[in-house]
């Protein structure tokens, strides 16, 4: 191990410092995060003893330090080769690796479905933006249908329709079409309100809210040592979802005033990028936690209690730079409370790969959205 840093795991100062979550299947490095350090990558591993601080490793030294599953060896190479250090970059490497089947057939199926989903969502979002733009700029006199984005002929027709209203935002039809394409690409993971099925980050926020409710009510019933940790997890989830909601609202607002959005595109583009990036960082790592809990919900009490201990240890606390005032104090307080309550995860710390724990991690991976 290269050394340990204090505090950042319990109260991370920034997203970059916290790192992007890597869904490894080797139990001892569960909850590990990758972050960029100049030209290199580093791995931040929560202290397996549950004590203060993280272990920091050079990315390339990971296989020398821990016995990894084959899936993790392949994922480690994929992330290293791509120099991936943001949630989106890590996600691409993760899906590619999982689709080999090395984390089991269910994770492979899920990875393939997620890759396909992304294309479908881009199309749906593009259609929503086109339809809304035409409706707003023509004041309801013109219409775009889904067929207009599903084929080249349809797209040509859409451009012609757009051309009839584009002058209102001082653009040609083609230019407006290209701008809307850029817009939909930018918000592909976030989407727009009222889609029949929300894209992954919007869906994730809802799942986090449900997680907060479910684990919150569990902690009121459960009488074990894990109960206060359940309450804490609920609190963190609620705060995270609420913070993310502010960014969703900001993104959605642009669709409500399309003329202003298009006219100020340069600035809007930067704002959209910023909001999407922050949502992506904010919700990063939660898919695994939510999947852990969803998996535990139907299990016996002793398994639920163990799950709560595990997930509390890797709970992604929102970095301090994202919040101010009372909220910052509240999150800092949550971080401290967690430090006091989390028990050392002895089960996860053996040098060998525990079949049961590994299977559980693979199952969570298959349930992640």
């Amino acid at each position, binding site marked *: 191990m290269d050394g340990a840093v204090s505090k950042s795991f319990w109260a991370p100062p920034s997203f970059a410092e916290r790192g992007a979550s890597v869904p490894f299947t080797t139990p001892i490095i569960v909850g590990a995060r990758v972050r960029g350090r100049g030209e290199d990558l580093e791995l931040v591993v929560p202290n397996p003893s549950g004590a203060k601080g993280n272990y920091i490793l050079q990315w390339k030294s990971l296989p020398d330090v821990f016995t990894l599953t084959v899936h993790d060896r392949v994922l480690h190479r994929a992330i290293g080769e791509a120099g991936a250090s943001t949630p989106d970059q890590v996600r691409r490497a993760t899906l590619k690796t999982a689709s080999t089947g090395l984390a089991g057939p*269910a994770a492979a199926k899920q990875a393939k479905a997620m890759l396909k989903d992304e294309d479908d969502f881009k199309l749906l979002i593009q259609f929503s933006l086109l339809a809304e733009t035409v409706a707003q700029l023509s004041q309801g006199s013109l219409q775009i249908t889904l067929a207009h984005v599903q084929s080249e002929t349809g797209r040509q027709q859409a451009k012609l329709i757009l051309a009839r209203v584009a002058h209102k935002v001082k653009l040609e039809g083609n230019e407006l079409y290209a701008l809307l394409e850029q817009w939909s690409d930018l918000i592909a993971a976030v989407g727009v309100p009222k889609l029949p099925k929300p894209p992954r980050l919007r869906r994730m926020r809802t799942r986090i809210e449900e997680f907060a409710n479910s684990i919150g009510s569990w902690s009121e019933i459960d009488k074990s040592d894990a109960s206060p940790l359940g309450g804490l997890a609920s609190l963190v989830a609620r705060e995270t979802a609420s913070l993310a909601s502010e960014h969703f609202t900001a993104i959605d607002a642009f669709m409500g005033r399309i003329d202003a959005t298009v006219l100020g595109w340069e600035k809007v583009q930067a704002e959209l990028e910023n909001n999407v990036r922050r949502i992506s960082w904010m919700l990063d790592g939660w898919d695994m936690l939510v999947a852990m809990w969803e998996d535990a919900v139907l299990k016996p009490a002793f398994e639920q209690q163990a799950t709560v201990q595990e997930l509390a240890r890797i709970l992604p606390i929102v970095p301090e730079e994202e919040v101010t005032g009372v909220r910052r104090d509240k999150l800092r307080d949550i971080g401290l409370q967690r430090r006091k309550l989390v028990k050392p995860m002895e089960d996860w710390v053996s040098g060998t790969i525990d079949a*049961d724990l590994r299977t559980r991690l693979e199952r969570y991976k298959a349930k992640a959205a």
Partner: protein
Amino acid sequence: MTDVGKSLGDLSQRLSQIPEATLVELVWSLEGKRAGNHTDSTAVTLLGQFRPRLQLVRPVRRMTAKRLFALPFEDMLTNTPPNKPKIIGKISRHVINPAWDLIVDKIGRTEVEQIEEEIRKVGRAHTSWLALGERLWPQCATALREIVTRGEKNVSYRAEVVPKLGGPEMWLDLQDVCDVLEIGLEIQQMRDNLPPKPIVALTDEDIGVIGQTVMAVDERMKVRAPVVVYALVARLDQPTEILSIFVRVAEKGMAGSTGELASITTEVMVTDMEQRFEEVRRQIASGANDGKITVREDLAKEVGHHLEGINKGKEQLKGTSGAAAARRLDRVRMKLKEMVSANVIENAGKEIATVLADLKRLAPMATGEGDITEMQQVEDRLLAMQLAAKYAGELGISQELKDELKRVEGHIDGHTGKLFFDLRSKGLKAENREAAEADLYSSVRMLELVSGAERAEKTLVEGLSLIDEKLAENKG
């Protein structure tokens, strides 16, 4: 898996994702619907689907006279079909409706309607049904005792009742229902005052509650003392815990007749344990898993959990008057051993050999294409073996497991050896790359689950470089 099985699996998954607050409201409303029209099949089916979550969430259910009648023996209920042998300490859910019909005939519809009316007056947040139970349970017990006594004396009367119940085994369940209801008040008082099922740990106060129940039953109807054992074991997370509970009860000076119940207690522990595994064994034996793909893994885990319970129980019993009881735990351990041998270890090698022979068809499933159930079942077997390896020594099946794992490993090695031989001798065309990689990844995955990551990665690296090499040769 059939389409119906898959749909049911999908539906169960979706239902499990319904937020708790919504679930509580949904159950309340569905039960209202069912109460109004008992044949409402949508309500009945959906409530059936919710059952696993209801055990966890435990929303307030709509009370009915029939549900009140079954309340004292609720924990003891199983889904055992009416034609299966009677299980000691358990009552088949199938006996509820016919038993209730017999009771209604005896006590009269007017009385039942009056009780229903009383129930309706009680609010949703009501927590104890003792007062109304005190009115209903003795009436039910008297009615059933009359039927049972008459049936024991009069064969033709029994022959008339048995078909109504669903079979001779249900006659035995009817007797158990009657036994529980005769001390229904004491049992329900105990249930009300203990933590919800499954009980993981009991406080001193809880032990006091159990002691009081034992004493009360001894005083009023000592012959029904075994019912306390049945009711308690059914509520415990670990059936073996019952032994240390009775020791703690005795230490409080409230042992009552528990000392006389040694053989019943052992029998109930063993059958309760068997019962907990019955569903898994049924699924394994029939091959029908209803979309569940972790049948063997769950069994292996559950065995591990119960072994922990046995060890904990033995530890607690050390040096106490329960030393003899500790020896009885070994009988439970033997049952666990048989279960792991038969369902996890036996025939694993043969099964894997069959799968490997068909890997051309199955490999795409391993990488998530199409219906992946068959591949998940293979993994289930391999994972269960790994889990069993943790406690194989304790059960005395280390060698058996090692030998079987060796056989499995031999089959996988044979398969990858052939894959590499074919690649070397026949080369590889670009259009066959995906299939070759899928085969390699599936074999590597299986190898990892059996022999560990080091060996599996070596095979992966060797295979991938061979694929690249042969593709390059083909290009050249």
